């Protein structure tokens, strides 16, 4: 079977292993209406028990949930330096809240953002912020419900790596990257709007 990964406009082999946390024991209740900003959308974050019980191999390239990574950050210093550790964030997680806890985001050679439902457009803002505001320069990967018809927007939002959903053909999905030739507005890949680039 060919690879599901599109990296820099080509099908590529995936060298990374995604480390899944154990499932939560109890159902976490939604806190709708509570004015804690990142809770408004209702998703639960990992609980302490899940964070502590997440296990991962001692060597090789692994992608860790951000909270697991923060928990083990000191112990993982060497592996981070060896570019063996990637970050996994969910679209409902607040980047601002953990970015301060990492001294240099570019020590990590990969950040992957998991989109649970393709229609969850938060991933675009997260990509944009990671690139533009936090100046992340390395591989930015979309994982989860990643499909052809969102690739163009993902690319424009700063993603250069796409792990296509298992049941879809990456060779077909890659065509989505070139749906449009010259977009109007400035974004991440092409930062200037059309009117500042070409004479109209």
């Amino acid at each position, binding site marked *: 079977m060919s690879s599901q990964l599109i990296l820099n406009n080509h099908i590529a082999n995936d060298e990374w292993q995604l480390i899944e946390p154990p499932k939560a024991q109890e159902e976490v209740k939604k806190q709708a209406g509570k*004015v804690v900003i990142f809770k408004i959308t209702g998703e639960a974050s990992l609980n302490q028990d899940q964070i502590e019980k997440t296990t991962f191999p001692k060597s090789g390239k692994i992608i860790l949930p951000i909270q697991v990574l923060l928990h083990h950050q000191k112990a993982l210093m060497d592996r981070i330096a060896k570019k063996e550790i990637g970050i996994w964030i969910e679209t409902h997680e607040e980047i601002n809240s953990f970015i301060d806890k990492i001294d240099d985001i570019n020590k990590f050679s990969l950040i992957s953002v998991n989109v649970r439902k393709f229609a969850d457009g938060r991933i675009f803002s997260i990509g944009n*912020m990671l690139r533009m505001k936090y100046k992340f320069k390395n591989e930015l990967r979309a994982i989860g419900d990643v499909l052809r018809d969102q690739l163009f*927007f993902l690319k*424009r939002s700063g993603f250069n790596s796409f792990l296509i959903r298992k049941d879809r053909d990456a060779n077909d999905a890659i065509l989505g990257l070139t*749906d449009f*030739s010259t977009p109007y*507005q400035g*974004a991440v890949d092409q*930062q200037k709007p*059309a009117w500042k680039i070409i004479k109209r």
Partner: protein
Amino acid sequence: MYKYDTLDQTLVNERVAQYEGQLTRFLNKELTEEEFRPLRLQNGLYIQRHAPMLRVAIPYGLLSSSQLIKLADIADKFDRGYGHFSTRQNIQFNWPKLEDTPKILKELAKVEMHAIQTSGNCIRNITTDQFAGVAPDEIIDPRYLAEIIRQWSTFHPEFALLPRKFKIAITGSSKDRAIVQAHDIGLEIFANNKNEMTVKVWVGGGLGRTPILGSVIKESLSWKHMLTYCEAILRIYNLYGRRDNMYKARIKILVKSLGIEKFKQLVDKEWETIKDGPNTLDELEINRVKAFFSEPNYKSRGTDELSKYTDNKQFSQWLLRCTHKHKKLGYRSVTLSLKSNEQAPGDATSDQMRSVAELAEQYSFGEIRVSHEQNLILADVLEDDLFELWEKAKVQKLTTPNIGLLTDIICCPGGDFCSLANAKSIPIAKSIQDIFDDMDYLHDIGEINLNISGCMNACGHHHVGHIGILGVDKDGSEWYQVTLGGNQGNFASIGKVIGPSFSEEEMPEVIKKIIGTYVSNRHPDENFIDCVSRIGIDPFKKEVYGEKGKK
């Protein structure tokens, strides 16, 4: 008006190809219904009660004659010979076949039209004042800014999949005819005390299930920052707007739950990081787009033709109701009413469309506007041509002199077509138009906006109608709830429910009683809405429900 260059045309052509591919993959079962849904919606395609409905974008309501002729041709070839102009200045075709939709889009692309982002959870068609560029009270012509926003919002990658739909309206007049306060973002353009173009930004307005008027988030913003500031608002909304419950997903709910102060704080903080960024507007782009909206070649005032016809009562009534003051001496703007009782409000047949295109070509520099009140407008007509135009338009039944009056009903397609609707709305409009067919009486009761929506999605803007009618579902049958005191414009307000809902048969009588209450309580020269504000809704309730205030 704006003309496409290679870039615009290429994007639209690429969109047609993309959509055609998506439809093929859907028909080949390579895309599930759930995956295809947002894709078709962002191309204006709904699955309706009888057939798909295709909503075509009319950016800020502006059309050329050749575009309108194309719409007429599409109506004939792919639909049943008519189209429905919507309250968002778009046109909807109710009967196309799914497999024909790429062909329709290809036809549209030939005249610089498309269905991009006319539905779905994205930035929708930008709307504005139907008298933009010609209104005497206008401060700044908002059309070129609307076009700039259109381009910026088209396929904006960051805001392609928002929590819910997002509507932006822009006005440049002291009198707001674009109901900017009822939009997710409302932009009011004015000149500050240094005479620089400045933007007042409203956020979190919207009708629908939870009607809320917008709050001011920025009192004055330089035009240069218009796009980046919108980006900051949209980013905060995109990240924090609710996605778990579609009824609580609009930006108004986020603004309300955080409070405008907290929301503004978040937006301003985010804006700091993108302010002066690449999407900051400059003179070059402003002037490029502005040039497309330069004044047409107005003639100087001719002879005073109009005075010849003062004895013609029908014409005089039309002149009074359907023509509007123009910034240029000797010119008027004309509203062609799509509100005769012979067709559903906002509907136009292909013959009517062709005839309007021809009238525009002959009398109004080949341009037509669609108003959010669902009428068609010829913005630049010489007063000397009015009589001739009126006679020709009369043949096509486009001269009902009811603009702004009770029978100029704003109405959604309702349960006859729309699968979201709880109740029919077109028959209610017709039954009201039928009993108020005496023009003299209509003129006597004066300006009244009556708006009808078939469900709480409020496509018929019922909340801001002086009289609002909302279709509700009670145990599987259709009922109608009546509100009074809604208003649009600078004094926008949300109407109050007068009491329990009514059956379809009761509705004409209810409206009659409401009007009767107004007539017996009004001061001389007092409009309906002013009378409602003064006396409150109780006298109306009493009349409609009897002494006890109950049915």
